[in-house]
């Protein structure tokens, strides 16, 4: 493992956290003025592949081409920052078996963990509200059981295993108001002997589960028909509204809803758009980013080369924008979100009123992976 430092760390942090004055043009538009006031953005965190085919953890600026990277032996999937320490956990892509814990301020790998025997990870994880525990989705493959591995974060020792409530748990989030995990159980059975092959398409039963962390068991569970809609990715708003992104495993010509919502005790229900609104997503959602304060969910569909923006109150599709290989999505603040692409771009959208692109940074020779996260601002000082 080695860190590459293509730029000076102090310069990077200064540029990242102290506004845009260094690289804004002298005459600023209204939007740029808003950005200038509001963009003390911490660095972004994403897994990536470079043009030589090497996989990396990247710590980078959304505003200009500046990054640190850490070489990885395999393709990773998502990175989750700790809520109150400058560390983050990167999880191997399914069916990988490694977790990488690193310090994103010092740019150092702190620890590498291997899954339990006969277990592999699914690529996502989340910290508890107080940061004392880290939870990750995994499979015990002899039984195909979906599990949540629980790690104590002061030493990253594994302390518990919970049932995920289904097969193929993928993305996991913490409920903002309750001591609960929200888990997208994709329903798809795989086995490392068959690499990434899907073994149960005809009988799959995906669900969205809430796990009570005090009791350690499934408290609520929702399903949605048709069952070939794999419940895969999700995000949750400050008010508890859950938005779910689906991946369809059925017939290519079926026109199916791919974005659902769940609120309170209601059932899982589709967001609202017309036939072409669903067709255009090409049966596959990658990342979901809920921005409660500007009433928007940004959702990427890389197979369709699209990013879509949805109204959280009306549940209507607000806008679709074409972006080749649109991948990760994360809120930078109450108003701005960043969308990465497999062709190396980081686009920033203003979602407050009319959705519009306000900035693009191009990283040459980097393909961003499907998920994006942001370091915690609280630790960022030079």
């Amino acid at each position: 493992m080695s860190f590459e430092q293509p730029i000076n760390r102090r310069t990077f942090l200064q540029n990242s956290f102290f506004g845009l004055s260094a690289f804004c043009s002298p005459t600023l538009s209204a939007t740029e003025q808003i950005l200038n006031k509001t963009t003390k953005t911490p660095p972004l965190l994403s897994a990536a592949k470079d043009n030589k085919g090497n996989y990396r953890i990247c710590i980078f600026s959304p505003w200009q081409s500046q990054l640190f990277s850490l070489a990885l032996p395999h393709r990773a999937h998502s990175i989750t920052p700790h809520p109150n320490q400058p560390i983050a956990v990167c999880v191997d892509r399914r069916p990988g078996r490694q977790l990488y814990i690193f310090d994103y301020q010092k740019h150092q790998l702190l620890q590498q963990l291997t899954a339990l025997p006969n277990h592999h990870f699914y690529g996502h994880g989340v910290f508890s509200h107080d940061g004392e525990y880290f939870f990750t989705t995994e499979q015990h493959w002899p039984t195909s059981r979906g599990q949540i591995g629980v790690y104590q974060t002061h030493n990253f020792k594994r302390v518990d295993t919970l049932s995920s409530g289904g097969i193929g748990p993928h993305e996991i989030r913490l409920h903002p108001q309750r001591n609960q995990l929200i888990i997208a159980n994709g329903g798809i059975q795989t086995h490392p002997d068959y690499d990434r092959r899907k073994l149960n398409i005809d009988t799959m039963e995906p669900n969205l589960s809430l796990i009570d962390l005090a009791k350690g068991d499934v408290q609520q569970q929702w399903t949605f028909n048709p069952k070939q809609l794999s419940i895969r990715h999700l995000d949750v708003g400050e008010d508890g509204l859950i938005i779910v992104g689906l991946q369809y495993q059925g017939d290519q010509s079926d026109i199916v809803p791919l974005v659902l919502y769940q609120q309170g005790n209601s059932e899982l229900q589709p967001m609202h758009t017309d036939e072409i609104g669903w067709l255009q997503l090409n049966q596959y959602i990658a990342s979901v980013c809920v921005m409660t304060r500007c009433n928007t969910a940004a959702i990427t569909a890389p197979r369709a080369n699209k990013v879509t923006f949805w109204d959280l109150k009306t549940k209507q599709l607000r806008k679709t924008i074409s972006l080749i290989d649109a991948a990760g999505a994360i809120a930078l603040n109450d108003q701005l979100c960043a969308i990465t692409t497999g062709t190396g771009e980081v686009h920033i959208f203003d979602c407050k009123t009319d959705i519009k692109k306000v900035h693009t940074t191009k990283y040459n020779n980097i393909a961003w992976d499907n998920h994006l996260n942001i370091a915690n601002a609280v630790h960022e000082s030079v």
Partner: protein
Amino acid sequence: MKYLHFNHYRRIYSKCLLISCILIASPLRANTDSLTKLIETTYANLTTHAETLHQSSQQLCKSPATQQPAHLVTSQQAWRDVMGAWIKADIINFGLVVDENIAWRFQFWPDKKNLVKRKVEQFLQQHSDAITEQQVAQASVILQGLSSAEYLLFDQNSPSVADNNQRCQLLVAITKVLVKNSRYLQKQWNKQQLSIKNQHDYLALVSNALASYLEKTYKKWSLAVLKENPYFAESWRSQHSNENVQQSLMAANRWYQQLILPYLNDTKAKQVLAKSLSTNFQQTITQFKALPTSLFKMLQTIKQQEKQSAVNQLQTATQQLRSLKKQVTVDLPQALDVLIGFNANDGD
């Protein structure tokens, strides 16, 4: 002194002129111009053929019964021509056609559940003879394009469009919508300027377009061939599937030769790849031209008589297409140092 002063400015002027000429004549400028020209020609061709189909559909519906068989044949040929023009235009998989989801309005594919038939018959049940283009334009996209027009013009198991006024009026309305959409693409395709700031942007755009197009071509072909199911062929009703692939390959080859090849001559390795790609394109086109015209009939023959010769022919053509696809989606982007669909092809 005055003379020298004038000469000094003349020299500066000459140098500026030279720099401008170099910029104007730069490979990037020349190739973005080629790209623009290719897009304009392609959409113009689509519009011309769509207009012809619409006119021939109108004539078919107006003509007396005795002349209808001849007009039906003319309309069927006009449909084949628009289909060919659309297949060629489908390589432009960026810009307006993607931003406004227009491709779905030209063709609904794949249709493994025969949704086209269901939507057309449902629409006919719900409407009278006086069918308008507005009704079609507001209906499901499945009803709006070439797939529905193919059903009306070629389907053997439903009433002929030639002697059913309602079906004929629907055909006229569908083809009118096709004309409108084609004209819209032709006139408005560049209403949002393409984001090409440098050579890398240009190569990323044209290479991604070519790679996605060949992926799609392969997918369309292999869906029927690998499952040996004639009804999964792209244009099985008109038996135009093999012709579609040939048109795709020719469009892809033209795209490659005109827009990408000029960038494959600065190293020996690139020159070798360029030569290999040109040969592979030619061989694949030849291979598909040598196949019997109807993929549908070939697949039916295989199903009924298990003819090994037909199986071998199809396998060889499929393998050839797969090898071309690999070169375009893996080797070419590597040589040009551009990235092609990372999550789009292998996400999680």
